[in-house]
């Protein structure tokens, strides 16, 4: 595909790259196959001194690291027990390499696009001075949370349970900024661009550029945020600026935000198209091949819950009552009922569930569980949303990329 480039005159950078590739070949004990076909600007990440991009600075040591290059790490359920997820425990889904040497004084956010009345840039100080700031508790969940359980297996990071968290996000309303720029009447979508760079080393390659329909962008809780739980957003979660869209796959909430485009069509940046963050428009059999035209963009995340106490594996005595607790959330909807079962769904008992702090915040539930006799049990939790849709006990509809697994969470308990 890049054969032409191969024949072009050798450049200094090309030579340096060739030497570096060769050095890597030596280090790895094998040749980088067809390295000559690499585009001229591209230097695979293994050859750069980028190891410091891939440390989990500021993150809890007990996060489960699914991938260290790029960093993808999830929180074990029992560490999500806090009402709000502390910054060091919040999951990380990076698609590329976070930016380095960030200067908040010179960082700008530019708004442009076919459906913007003008192109306008703001510094962080401009945003803070010019617009009112708001704080909301908003749950962010990776679209692929729970992917691990799909059968046949789905491609990508094999998230188990903990690619979810809820934090207080502070920033300005996206709609205030968009309206300050001016939105043309034909606007249908917004798309974001971040300062992260592609793993292939190709500086021109956009890592991920997703977005939301304009109606979603104009919601009150849709933020351009610089604070998470009252502190600067951690580097790995998008410092110094990110978007926040509650109830959508977290990938819509662009990190290291520096540009927003107002589009007159559905945004078509990388990971908006193809199979990424899409599910079959109509249900398909497990393992089915689905043509790209039959894949639809995920908008709302489904109703879901997590038992955060006790940690799976608790052993208690027969005369003890087991207190359980956790959180439940339902995209843009509310969780209206919460149940638990200790007999694999034969009977369900109600939990106490409180109201969300605001729309898109997760809700907390508690219950006290008694067991009839000694033995092995599983405590299953099931949330029901305001449309009376409940979590399934089995996996929901299979889809090629393994999104939207909202099957009931369960923990193992032994009564002795």
């Amino acid at each position, binding site marked *: 595909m890049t054969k032409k480039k191969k024949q072009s005159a050798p450049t200094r950078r090309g030579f340096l790259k060739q030497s570096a590739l060769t050095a890597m070949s030596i280090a790895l004990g094998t040749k980088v196959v067809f390295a000559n076909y690499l585009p001229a600007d591209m230097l695979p990440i293994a050859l750069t001194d980028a190891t410091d991009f891939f440390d989990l600075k500021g993150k809890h040591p007990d996060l489960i690291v699914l991938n260290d290059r790029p960093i993808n790490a999830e929180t074990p359920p029992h560490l999500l027990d806090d009402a709000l997820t502390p910054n060091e425990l919040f999951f990380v889904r990076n698609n590329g390499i976070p930016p380095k040497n960030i200067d908040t004084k010179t960082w700008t956010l530019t708004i442009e696009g076919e459906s913007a009345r003008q192109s306008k840039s703001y510094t962080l100080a401009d945003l803070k001075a010019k617009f009112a700031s708001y704080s909301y508790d908003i749950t962010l969940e990776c679209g692929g949370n729970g992917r691990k359980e799909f059968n046949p297996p789905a491609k990508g*990071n094999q998230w188990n349970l903990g690619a979810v968290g809820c934090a207080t996000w502070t920033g300005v309303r996206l709609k205030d900024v968009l309206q300050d720029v001016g939105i043309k009447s034909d606007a249908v979508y917004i798309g974001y661009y971040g300062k992260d760079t592609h793993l292939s080393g190709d500086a021109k390659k956009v890592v991920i550029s997703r977005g939301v329909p304009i109606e979603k962008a104009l919601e009150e809780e849709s933020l351009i945020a610089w604070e998470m739980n009252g502190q600067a957003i951690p580097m790995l979660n998008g410092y110094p600026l990110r978007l926040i869209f509650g109830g959508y796959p977290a990938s819509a909430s662009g990190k290291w935000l520096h540009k927003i485009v107002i589009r007159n069509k559905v945004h078509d940046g990388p990971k908006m198209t193809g199979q990424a963050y899409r599910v079959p428009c109509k249900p398909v059999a497990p393992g089915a091949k689905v043509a790209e035209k039959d894949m639809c963009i995920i908008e709302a995340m489904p109703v879901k819950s997590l038992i955060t106490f006790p940690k799976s594996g608790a052993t208690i005595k027969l005369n003890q009552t087991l207190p359980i607790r956790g959180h439940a959330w339902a995209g843009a909807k509310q969780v209206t009922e919460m149940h638990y079962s200790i007999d694999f769904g034969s009977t369900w008992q109600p939990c106490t569930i409180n109201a969300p702090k605001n729309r898109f915040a997760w809700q907390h539930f508690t219950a006290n569980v008694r067991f009839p006799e000694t033995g092995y049990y*599983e405590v299953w939790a099931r949330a029901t949303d305001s449309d009376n849709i409940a979590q399934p006990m089995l996996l929901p509809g299979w889809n090629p990329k393994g999104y939207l697994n909202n099957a009931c969470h369960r923990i193992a308990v032994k009564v002795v």
Partner: protein
Amino acid sequence: MKNNISLLLTSVYLVFGICLLAFCYVLFGNVVSGWFDFSSVPSKTAIQRTKTTPKSEQVVDGIHLETGLVYAEGFDIVRGTCTACHSAKLVTQNRASREGWKQMLTWMQATQGLWELGEQEPIILDYLATHYAPEAIGRRANIDMKEVEWYILNLEEE
């Protein structure tokens, strides 16, 4: 001071040596690599040799410690190719049929800058389809009993 200078000199020689090696490799790499059959099954001697290699290069229970990849035919090529952009963890997490792996490679070639793999592609696909094949787990797997760490939960007694 004198120590520092000799240290410096040693480093300079070392760097020069490495450069020279790298340079030779640039020139003769294709020829030299042909002398070795990287794709052969790692031999017993290769595995024994790991005793003297750094800990991370060791192979334990058929797993190469540094990368977590299965140490078997095709390992060198897979390592060389598939850890250039992301870590091997992205590979070892995934399970797919040969066709499924082929689709992932095609997707990376179309969208993520993965280059043409030429005659190495079948070797890579054989390796992946053999060692990272899907297991049937039904509509929902049991809680993995090996993963559960049992502990005594201290609660008030009634």
